[in-house]
């Protein structure tokens, strides 16, 4: 027996609710809009928040790219892409950023800047940056409304006292349009500046925590920092202070993943596989020319 799903798996009422939540999320940049987060045929925590946004937005003429930790080939990306292919007949999927109109991503923002015609959907495990300093959601909602982030700043200050450095490697708290502070999902610090004045709309979906929030295009996004301890991104310099290149494509301007070889030595390679492939192809082309 063949089973026919509604286009996009979700029923139209569920899509409408997500769509209305997105409009409020855009209108109140950085505010976590609660929504009902329907059951999906995969566990919460496997990208259901991002997936519900993607399925609510997607149309038959869409070209979708799904990324997991920068790669189109890792298990979460492959599963979600196949699910969309199964439930959205007619939708194209791609691994090339420049072909995509809709991009769903886990833990990375692509290296190449997005365009105004693209929309980025990020999967979010923990949407509220205040949860480390305040356990009550009722109180956190008041703090967010008042833009009261004093206790979060104290937490960052305590890091500086203990370690001479803010020790947050990913999910770096970022203030949107001078008011709400968001958890920008587990993107590395490297990606945080891409939120600021982004050419494309960026949507965040937390399925388990039932929240949707947004950073509209051309909006100020400032990582929390202090005047005398500015925000800085990861350094990929070796012990001599030289920028490490990607060992596969040679790029010196991308976020690098660290791999351990069998002999214990370390190897560095682009995290964004599409970017790595593009640079590699360009290098080969230049060599042939």
């Amino acid at each position: 027996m063949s089973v026919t799903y509604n286009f996009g798996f979700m029923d139209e009422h569920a899509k409408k609710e997500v769509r209305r939540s997105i409009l409020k999320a855009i209108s109140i940049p950085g505010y976590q809009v609660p929504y009902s987060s329907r059951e999906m045929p995969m566990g919460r925590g496997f990208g259901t928040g991002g997936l519900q946004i993607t399925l609510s937005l997607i149309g038959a003429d869409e070209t979708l790219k799904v990324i997991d930790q920068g790669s189109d080939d890792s298990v979460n990306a492959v599963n979600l892409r196949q699910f969309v292919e199964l439930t959205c007949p007619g939708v194209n999927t791609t691994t090339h950023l420049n072909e995509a109109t809709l991009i769903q991503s886990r833990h990375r923002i692509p290296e190449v800047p997005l365009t105004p015609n693209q929309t980025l959907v990020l999967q979010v495990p923990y949407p509220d940056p205040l949860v480390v300093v305040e356990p009550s959601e009722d109180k956190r909602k008041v703090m967010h409304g008042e833009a009261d982030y004093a206790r979060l700043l104290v937490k960052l200050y305590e890091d500086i006292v203990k370690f001479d450095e803010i020790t947050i490697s990913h999910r770096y708290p970022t203030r949107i349009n001078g008011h709400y502070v968001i958890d920008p999902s587990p993107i590395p610090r490297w990606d945080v500046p891409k939120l600021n004045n982004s050419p494309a709309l960026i949507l965040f979906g937390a399925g388990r925590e039932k929240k949707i929030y947004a950073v509209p295009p051309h909006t100020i996004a400032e990582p929390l920092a202090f005047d005398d301890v500015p925000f800085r991104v990861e350094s990929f310099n070796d012990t001599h202070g030289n920028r490490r290149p990607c060992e596969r494509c040679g790029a010196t301007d991308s976020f690098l993943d660290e791999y351990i070889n069998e002999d214990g030595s370390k190897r560095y390679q682009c995290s964004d596989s599409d970017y790595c492939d593009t640079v590699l192809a360009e290098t080969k082309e230049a060599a042939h020319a």
Partner: protein
Amino acid sequence: MSNLATTIPSVWQPHTQQQAYRQLMQAFANPGQIETLSDDALLLTLATLLDGATSLADVHGLIPALDYTRLETVTATPETAHFVLADGAQVPAFAPSLGTLESPEGGATLLLAITSVSEGNAYTLSGPGIDGVRNIALQGLNPAWLDARESWNAAFPMGVDILLLAGRKVLALPRTTSIKGA
């Protein structure tokens, strides 16, 4: 029997609404940017966004009875409705819901039917979603709406988000957009 999809008007079909929603989302993400929908903007926008989980106040009775029934929405007063539809030429004579400090998404979405929206330099917009400034011209909008909007949106994050609709065209003014007259 003929194909069902051809007998239901396009406005009520999921595919049309998905396309319209993407344009509405672009409109909200880029305040003042004019989107041209595939059908009458007023009805298509309502059909795209509303269902039984929402409430609507049609202040000036702009929706024909049959279409109103098809929206399957809950009727509410303009003071409490999620969506308030009004004739932009009239003066606002109600105070919409602004949400609360904790839950500002409770602020109403106002849909104002006006004569025309176009690029022009009657109003200069700035704020999130706008690279620098964006200029628009509006016809058939009573300036009292913009004054009222300013007071409704005075205490961010509370406020109202406005859609201006004229024919097939729509533009959005979320609460974060600042508007300066020429």
